[in-house]
């Protein structure tokens, strides 16, 4: 018989459970059975729930009213309103209750007794994970959404997984005719020219047409004469979409794939791009075909729709950020190509660097730009003028395409951020050796540094220099930690309010400033402590766990918190996009679902706990006045 709510003799309790996470996932029969096991308890305003009613009792649900939890030292733990849960963390404890519960208003409580909850947990993995007692575990189960395994996800799988491992390889002195024969034999459209393990160049079938047949070249001549030298390559761990991006950027049709130092195959354009209907791939393809800022600007809406689709399909937030970063990179690089085309050859070698979220591969739809230029040498005024115009072309171009100008002016258009390598080195030295307030702002942005375009070795030397300054620099870590800990996550949410640590109720909270940034900063500090060169937050946390700076468990729960916070953030950005409003990072608890509120609260706790641990570990107390 189909079971419906109408048949429940306890419709009130049944309905309440039906909209209370995680019981809304139970079947109607299970929910009705659960309703029949509830204990109901009443507290008048000011009443305290005695410890023996909490210890080992089970799970309490606030039906109506509100209660306040306080730690044993009387500091506020949380305020809970209708629909909020408590007590499960004390379920297995016997001696001492970790908090007290006092009614702020007349309150009706439902209790699911311990034995009933245990049985439910045994029978339902989703309920079990939810009440595991650890916030991280709870978040982990919330994140087990269906990951889209469509085309979008395909483009995020590593190149190594899909690349054809058959490779045509010849030595540089091989004749063109024999090289062509090798391509036929291996059924490949290109051949790698190698000397031992070193890749010298690539010859494609198109090269054979263009450079051999069309010009009547002698096919007995060595293949090295017609090859494309120092070809662009890709690591087998890189996502497919990056291969697409590289092909577009450099206008090549094949990419040798390397696994460490060995050739693992060749990616070809045909299969990857032309037939793709994936928006992001299509968009990147289009970006590199546009020849003016005006034309690029037309793609802005497409970029938004890529973001909307990715959020909608429930792709992992990490992957969304990767896609959005690749798109931002493509816009930047294409603008740089166009700038060079317009302005002519640059007067010296340079590297275009990105900082902040773009460096961390954490771009989203509303990211602004942080960038700079590393010059290979000291320049005169006329030469400087070239880079001023280049920077303006690119930064204002990016702004036209929807990447807002950095409000703090951390951009290549700022003469201070368009300087020779040794000047950059001086900056970092002063930031790291004398980290004053201003320096801390800069260092937080520029410690996340990635090469994007131009001469990569400039950036490599810069990064190496910086890591010398930061290596085993305990004082610097203490200062970074103390600076980050000036901001705390909210304690939780209470009805339509955000509950601050001092007990104050605020109407909004800033998900970037009060949650996400804190995670990013902690990851940065931990990675520095591990002397790791990782730039993205996930990589940093993993490297910190590998170096045993943080536990694997802690790493895991921080990653879960990161993903969940980004999920909430992205879904609200998507809503803003659809409404056509400007997305800011201020969230109103009243507009969040109960599910989001509960899990954000878990995320906040994880951050707060990690902040506390960092404070101890890096002796950050009292470092900053």
């Amino acid at each position, binding site marked *: 018989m189909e079971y419906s709510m109408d048949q429940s*003799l*306890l*419709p009130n309790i049944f309905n309440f459970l039906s909209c209370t996470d995680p019981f809304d996932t139970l079947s109607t029969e299970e929910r009705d059975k659960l309703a029949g096991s509830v*204990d*109901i*308890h*009443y507290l008048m305003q000011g009443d305290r729930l005695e410890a023996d009613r909490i210890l080992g009792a089970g799970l309490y649900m606030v039906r109506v009213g509100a209660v306040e939890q306080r730690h044993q030292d009387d500091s506020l733990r949380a305020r809970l309103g209708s629909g909020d849960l408590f007590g499960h963390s004390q379920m297995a404890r016997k001696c001492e209750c970790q908090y007290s519960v006092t009614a702020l208003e007349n309150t009706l409580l439902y*209790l699911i007794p311990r034995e009933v909850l245990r049985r439910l947990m045994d029978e339902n993995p989703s309920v079990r994970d939810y009440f595991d007692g650890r916030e991280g575990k709870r978040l982990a189960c919330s994140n087990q959404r269906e990951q889209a395994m469509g085309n979008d996800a395909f483009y995020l799988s590593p190149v190594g997984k899909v690349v054809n491992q058959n490779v045509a390889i010849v030595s540089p002195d091989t004749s063109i005719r024999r090289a062509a024969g090798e391509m036929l034999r291996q059924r490949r459209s290109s051949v790698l020219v190698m000397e031992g393990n070193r890749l010298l160049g690539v010859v494609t079938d198109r090269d054979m047409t263009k450079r051999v047949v069309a010009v009547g070249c002698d096919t007995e001549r060595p293949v090295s004469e017609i090859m494309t030298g120092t070809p662009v390559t890709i690591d087998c761990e890189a996502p497919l979409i990056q291969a697409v991006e590289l092909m577009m950027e450099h206008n090549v049709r094949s990419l040798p794939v390397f696994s460490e130092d060995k050739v693992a195959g060749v990616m070809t354009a045909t299969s990857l791009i032309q037939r793709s209907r994936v928006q992001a791939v299509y968009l990147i393809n289009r970006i590199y075909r546009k020849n003016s800022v005006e034309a690029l600007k037309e793609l802005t809406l497409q970029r938004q729709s890529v973001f909307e689709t990715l959020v909608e399909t429930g792709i992992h937030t990490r992957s969304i950020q990767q896609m959005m970063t690749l798109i931002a990179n493509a816009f930047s690089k294409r603008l740089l190509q166009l700038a060079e085309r317009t302005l002519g050859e640059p007067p010296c070698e340079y590297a275009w660097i990105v900082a902040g979220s773009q460096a961390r591969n954490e771009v989203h739809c509303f990211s602004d730009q942080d960038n700079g230029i590393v010059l290979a040498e000291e320049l005169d005024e006329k030469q400087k003028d070239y880079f001023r115009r280049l920077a303006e072309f690119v930064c204002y171009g990016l702004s036209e395409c929807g990447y807002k100008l950095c409000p703090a002016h951390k951009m290549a258009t700022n003469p201070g951020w368009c300087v020779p390598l040794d000047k950059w080195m001086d900056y970092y030295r002063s930031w790291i050796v004398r980290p004053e307030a201003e320096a801390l702002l800069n260092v937080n942005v520029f410690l996340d540094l990635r090469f994007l375009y131009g001469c990569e070795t400039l950036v490599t030397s810069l990064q190496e220099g910086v890591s010398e300054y930061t290596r085993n620099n305990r004082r610097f870590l203490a200062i970074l930690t103390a600076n980050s800990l000036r901001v705390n996550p909210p304690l939780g949410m209470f009805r339509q309010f955000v509950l601050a640590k001092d007990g104050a109720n605020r109407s909004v909270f800033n998900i970037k400033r009060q949650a996400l940034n804190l995670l990013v900063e902690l990851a940065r500090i931990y990675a520095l402590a591990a002397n790791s060169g990782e730039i993205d937050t996930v990589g940093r946390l993993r490297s910190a766990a590998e170096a045993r700076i943080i536990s694997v468990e802690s790493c895991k729960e921080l990653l879960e918190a990161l993903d969940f916070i980004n999920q909430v953030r992205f879904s609200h950005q998507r809503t803003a996009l659809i409404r056509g409003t400007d997305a800011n990072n201020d969230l109103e608890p009243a507009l969040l679902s109960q599910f989001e509120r509960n899990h954000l609260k878990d995320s906040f706790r994880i951050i707060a706990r990690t902040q506390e641990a960092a404070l101890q570990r890096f002796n950050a107390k009292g470092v900053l006045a």
Partner: protein
Amino acid sequence: MARLFKPCRPLVKMEGKRVAALEGGRVSEELLPLFQSPVPSPDTPLDELEILALDFETSGFDPCRDSILSAGMVEISRRTLRLSTSEHFYFAAPWSVNARAAVVNHITPETLTDGVSFEQGVGRLMKRMAGKIVVVHGSAIEQGFLRQALGIPQDGFLPVVWLDTLMLERSLSSNRGNTEKDYRLSEIRKKKGLPAYLAHNSLADSIASGELFLVLVREIFAHAQPTLGPLYRRSLSGRP
């Protein structure tokens, strides 16, 4: 003369009558379960008592003409309502359902055919009530229909302590000088900030009055230890 110095103690009197009835051999075999436990003394702490919140759905208001359609009940102990102790059953008596009651209660002859027989139902009620204080909202209906079901006169003696949430609320209201009031269960609950109950079934109603009872106990005793005596006095008189 003696009455002037002796306070009116209905619970003590009820216990005296119970003992006398038992000793006099005036209790029938069927009624025995209700007579076996002593009536608690007025100073018994509420937390030491077993309480049963009870509700009947009936086909009308006249115990002689109408009948009980269903019964719902749930136990309260240590000021906690335990839904695991809840019970609900229909009385199998399809001929007694009239159209009006069916509309109000959503009980139709079909649902009643699944019910227990009259004797079974009364037996279960006795078993659940034995040794417990009974909480109802507007106890006249339940008292009247129970007496009728047990085959004793409407003014006959039963050693059952009824606590009436309607009277308890009235005892608080007259405190505040407000006599013109809506004493329906749903209205009082609304006033107390308790959640609205959606359904009209005797189990949901027994829980609804049980919850209201928890609230009233806290309001009546504030921070003092709740005892039975004052509650029973208020329940009888509707006054503080």
